[in-house]
Structures are given as C-alpha cells and as structure tokens.
C-alpha cells in the first residue's frame, strides 16, 4: 500500500501541491496508524498530513477520488448487476469447491468467487506492464482495455467453466437451472471486463487531470490579461488576494524594523525606578512612518475591458488593505469610485465600475481630457505622501495628450507609477502616447500577465515604499 500512497503523492506533486519528503513519511506513518479499513478516515489522514493549504483541499479531493476508489460502492455495483440470483448460486459454487473437490485455476477462482477489491488488485497488476503510461486519448481506452484483458488466460477460464457445468449436470440439475447458472457465470465475466475498462478510463482521467492542472497554472500566469475567460478571472482573484497580502506583510515587517532609533530617555528613566535607578530596560523612540496614501486611476474603456476588470480587482484589494486609498476610473470623463468599492463586494464593485460609474462608456478613451479634469478638481487634495497608480494602455485615439496635466500632477505628489497592459513594443506606435507621459512617471512597467503583475507588486513593495521616498 505504501507504494500506492507514494504514487498518489507523486500525482499531487504534479498537480503543484508542495509536499516535502518529511510530509510524505508522515503520511505513511499516519496511514499505518489508522489502517485502511475506513475510507473516510484514510482520506482524512492523508489530507491532514499532506495538504497544508486549505485552497489545495479541492484538488486533493479530486485526485483522491480518482486514485482510491470506493471499493464498497464497487462491490455493491457488482451485486446489483448480478441480481438476486447471486447469493444462491454463489452458495452452490462454494459447496462444489468445498465438498466435491472441484479444482479451479486461481484466476477462475478469483473471477467466480472473488470480492470487488481482489478483482481490482488483479486488474491493477495486469495493467502494470501494459504500457498504460502511453495512454493519452479517449480513443485509446478500448485498445488498452483489450491489452489488459489479454494478460488473462481466457481459455483456462472457459475450460473451468465447462468443468463446473459438467459437474453440475452430473449432480442432476435440470436444464433451466443450468442455464441460469451459466448466465450467472457469464455475467461475472462481463462485470470483470467492465471493471477493466473502468480502470483504464480512470487512469486516463487521472492523466488528463495531471496535465490539465499543470497547464492551467503555467499558462495562466503568462496569458495576456485581456484574453481571460470568466472562469480564469475567478482563479485570478486568489492570486490578487495573495499579492495584496504580500504587500501588507512587507509593510508590517518594515514598520517593525523601524522600531529601533534614538533613546527614549523619559521612558527609560521611568522604568529604571523599579530597579533602584539602574536602567535595566532601555526604551527607544519609535519613528512614526507615514501610511502610504494611494490614488489609483484606471482606464475602463472597451478596448481594455478584460485587463481593467483584472486591474480593478487589484484596486479593490488594495483599497481593502490600506485605509488611505482613493480609486478613480475614466474613459474620457473621470469619476471617483472609492465609495462604491468600499460598499460593494468585489464582484459587484467591479461590475459597477465597469458599467454604472458616472462616466460615458460609449465614447473613446481620452487620457488627456481625463488628466486635465483630474488636475482641475483634485490637485488641491494631492500631497507629497501620495502615490498615484495609473492603469491604462495610453491609447489616446489621437486626442490631445495634454501631457502638461500629468506633469502638473507629478509636481504635487510623491510619484506616479504606470502599469500598461500593452506590450512594450506597441508603445508609441499608432495612437499610443506612452512616450509622452513616461517622463512624468517614476516607474513605467509593462503589465500584460499575472506573472508580470506579481513582479511589479514585489517591486513596488521593495523599492518604492521601502526606500521611503
């Protein structure tokens, strides 16, 4: 069984669960502790020792079910297929073997009298060198089933069945009974064949799952943001949440590290009184670090619809993490959505920002107009603690870029970071005015994929806020 568990662990690893050798050993030790009698217990044991992230539980469940089948259910399935005749005929066969010295081949014995689990083991053994690792498509299922079937010696089985029938005939059973018994034996053979096919099909599913899971994880982080399907967007949500948490962790760490500084004479002396004037404990003055103030401005025009859906997810998470975040969206008119994001849950907030914010969604995006409006209305509220995070492709539809407005804004704030969902090769070509805005920005990054976004966020945390500019 240990081998089976190790093989299972291999599959979990291929599905990108991180399992260390010590955890694998734990799983073996633990399963030896509880035994294999109860499937639920066994499953809980493996889960407790192997799965350390709750989000991986679902993957674990799926692979577990592919791997360790429900033998009890299987046994019942066979019983049902065989009908009520089962018990009586089984009895008869048992008596033949025990009392009349019927000698059967091991295999026939297994097929005629065995339990579901024993049959399963036989099939698994047969499949071992049938080249199942080459199984890739559904069309191959038939071929491989045949291949496993060929491993069994069917002529012996048939001979044995004839033997049984002859013995029964000699015992004087009437033809009706004999027909029923023959029918029963054939049903069992058929059930066995069906099990072989099921085994191959499950194997295929397992393989497909392995491959699929790996593919999604790899491809997702390299896939351009605007090409994501709704399902993928849902998966992305987790990633963004993780990123947001990373930011928070990094900031918290920094704040703690800053707790060294100059001596706090007042507190040190106060505490020294309880030691008779000896300064046993030294207190340092805490330097107060400003909280980051963040303004996000996100392009929500049709051309970047999917990318901005994703960007808004980031904005929503940022707003949840930090107390001083204001969020704006624009097409050409610019509007604040801070309140909506604070009120609505993420899905609804984003829907709202993409459809119902007080901007005209049908015109073409105009960065210049948006910036000049922003400069007009918000300039007063900007200060040196503010960082502006711009999310947009800078495709201005040949409108006036009004780069002066962005310059003006830059003068009032700590810095501007621009994340562009378009490849760097496109900047400045056609109606892209990225090169005109770039001089006013402190950091311009291509942000086409989730992988790139991850890098950008790490960058932000490490260089931008840490440097304490």
């Amino acid at each position, binding site marked *: 069984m240990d081998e089976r568990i190790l093989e299972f662990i291999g599959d979990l690893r291929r599905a990108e669960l*991180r399992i*260390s050798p*010590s*955890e694998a050993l*734990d799983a073996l*030790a*633990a399963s030896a*502790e*509880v035994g294999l009698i*109860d499937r*639920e*217990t066994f499953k*809980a*044991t493996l*889960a*407790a*020792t192997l*799965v*350390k*992230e*709750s989000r991986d*539980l679902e993957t674990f469940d799926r692979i577990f079910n592919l791997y360790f089948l429900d033998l009890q259910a299987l046994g019942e399935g066979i019983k049902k297929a065989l009908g009520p005749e089962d018990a009586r005929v089984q009895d008869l066969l048992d008596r033949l073997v025990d009392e009349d010295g019927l000698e059967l081949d091991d295999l026939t014995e297994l097929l005629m009298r065995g339990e579901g689990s024993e049959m399963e083991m036989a099939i698994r053994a047969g499949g071992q060198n049938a080249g199942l690792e080459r199984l890739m498509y559904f069309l191959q299922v038939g071929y491989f089933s045949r291949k496993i079937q060929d491993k069994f010696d069917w002529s012996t089985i048939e001979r044995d069945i004839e033997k049984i029938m002859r013995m029964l005939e000699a015992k004087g059973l009437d033809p009706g009974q004999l027909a029923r018994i023959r029918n029963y034996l054939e049903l069992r053979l058929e059930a066995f064949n069906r099990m072989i096919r099921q085994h191959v099909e499950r194997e295929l599913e397992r393989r497909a799952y392995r491959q699929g899971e790996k593919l999604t994880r790899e491809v997702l982080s390299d896939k351009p943001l605007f090409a994501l399907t709704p399902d993928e967007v849902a998966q992305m949500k987790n990633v963004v949440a*993780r990123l947001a*948490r990373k930011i928070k*962790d990094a900031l918290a*760490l920094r704040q*703690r590290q800053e707790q060294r500084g100059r001596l706090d004479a007042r507190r040190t002396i106060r505490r020294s009184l*309880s*030691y*008779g004037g*000896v300064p*046993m404990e030294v207190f340092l003055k805490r330097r107060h670090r400003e909280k980051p103030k963040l303004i996000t401005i996100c392009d929500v025009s049709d051309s970047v619809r999917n990318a901005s859906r994703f960007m808004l997810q980031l904005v929503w998470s940022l707003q949840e993490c930090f107390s001083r975040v204001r969020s704006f969206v624009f097409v050409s008119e610019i509007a604040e959505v801070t309140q909506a994001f604070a*009120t609505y*849950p993420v899905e609804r907030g984003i829907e709202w920002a993409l459809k119902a914010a007080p901007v005209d969604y049908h015109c073409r995006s105009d960065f210049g107009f948006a910036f000049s409006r922003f400069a007009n209305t918000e300039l007063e509220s900007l200060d040196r603690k503010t960082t502006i995070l711009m999310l947009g492709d800078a495709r201005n539809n040949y409108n006036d870029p009004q780069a002066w407005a962005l310059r003006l804004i830059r003068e009032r704030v700590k810095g501007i970071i621009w994340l562009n969902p378009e490849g760097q090769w496109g900047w400045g070509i056609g109606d892209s005015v990225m090169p005109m805005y770039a001089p006013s920005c402190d950091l311009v990054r291509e942000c086409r994929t989730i992988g790139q976004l991850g890098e950008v966020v790490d960058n932000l945390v490490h260089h931008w806020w840490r440097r304490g500019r």
Partner: protein
Amino acid sequence: MFDSVEDVQQRFKNARYIASRRISTVVYLSERMGRPVLIEGPAGVGKTELAKTLADITNRPLIRLQCYEGLDEGKALYEWKYAKQLLYTQLLKDRIGELIADAPSLPDAVARIAGQDDAFFSFRFLSQRPLLSAIQSDQPVVLLIDEIDKAEPEFEAFLLEVLSDFQVSVPELGTVKAKHVPLVVLTSNNARELSDGLKRRCLHLFIDFPAPAEELEIIRLKVPEIPAKLASAVVAAVQKIRALELRKPPSVSESLDWARSLVILNAQALDAALVESTLTMLVKYEKDLERVKGALDKVLAP
C-alpha cells in the same frame, strides 16, 4: 490514551462537542504521532473549543498562549525576575561581602562570585510563561497556541524550534526537556500565510462551517431546550444567510447565541418581526444587517 478514531469521536460527543470523522481522525493521529495540530478556518467554528474539549476529555490541564502582534519570547517562554534578583543581592550584601572578604585578588573574588551563579540563576528567579510551563509540567498537558497568525513570522520560527524537539534552552540553566510531550493545538484565522516549516511540522485540519445536519446536531446538543421545529428553522435560516455575500457570515457560535436568545424569548417558530429584532445576535456589521433585512423573505422561505 485513545483506542481508535471512533473512541475519540464518542468521547468528544460525551463532552458535548460534535467532532466529525475528519476532526476525530486528526486528533487521534496527533496523539499517536506526537504531532501538533494546526487548525484553520473561519472565526467561531469551534477551533479553540476543540482544544478546550480535548483537555477536558483527556483530563489534562489546558495551558493557553494567546498570540498577538508584538508577542516575543519573553512573554511566551520565560523571563528572569530582575527585580527579585536585584532585591536578593541587596539583602544578601553582607553574605556576599563575607564570601569574598578573604579573596587574595580581584580575579579570585570574581571567580568566587561566579561560583554562586546557581543561586541567582535558578528556577526560583525564573517566571515561567505558557510555553515553558507546558514543557516543565509534571503532568501531561494540552497546549493551546491561539491565533498564531497574529504573531510575527519571527515568533513562528522560534515556536518551530520548541515544537520540533519539545525542549527549550535557557542559557543560564541549560536545556529543559519536556517530561511529557504535550498535546499541542495551534489555531489560525488565516490573517497571514504561515511559514512552510511550521505547516510541515503540524497535522493540518481545516474546519469549515458545518453541513446543515451537523449544525442541527450541534444546536440540539448545546441548546437542548429548543423545540425541534425551531431548531431546524434556525439552521435553515442561518445556512441561507451564509449564502448571502456578507462581510462576516454568521458562524456556529453566532447561530448558537441566536438559538439561545430565541429560547429565552420563548419563540416557537420564526417570523419576520422576530428575526429582525434578534438579527444582531447573528450579524455583526451594519451593512450586513441591512443586506439580510433586505433578503428576509428569501431567508425565511421554506
């Protein structure tokens, strides 16, 4: 201590805690393998309660370490009682004077005082914090490390050391080894990713909101005076409220509170007015309250 997984389950049930098969298995394994259990899950599903009940059914004292930001070794493990040490040296000034009176040289005097180190650095002057007292205890204990995610990553690394060998080194005293390996339960609300090392060391248990049948069982067990029909109505309503997108969905502890308050109000069935007036037991945020009130007819629909 436990015969089997079923035994664990039964004993938890006797102590009025409904432990699913999964929970009992992990508890059983933890005891057999001497491994800590790390429990994750939303607030109020009975994580802390599990540790308390475990202490209860094993007849062991519970030692609890509540984590918070800024928790350090001094508060978790041990601290020297500086003031007491200082006081004793003052009081014993004369004796110390006698001791070194006839020392021929300064190094000699220092050596003599150093020889008396043990007197001042002994357990007498050590104030034990939860971790050390769990390790030092003469009888086996249950150690609950609550909300480990609130403490800093550095503390986690330190804890890892303690949990892997169940020993602590106090430089002045040497290594203190556990007389009995304690049953350790850690809980986390997932406010922060825990380090891989700690996770690797622990058996992992995720407790989610219970399934309707399980929740009904819990309510019937904890609030035995509740009428059967009301109990099922409460469970149905709570399940529906959880499905609404709330900032903080009601947990088991909240549904128990609600059930208790309904019993006190002598309610026999749920109706809109009653639910509205008792909703604060269940939902804790203003915005959530409004949401639930808006969807009340859906919540109460059979």
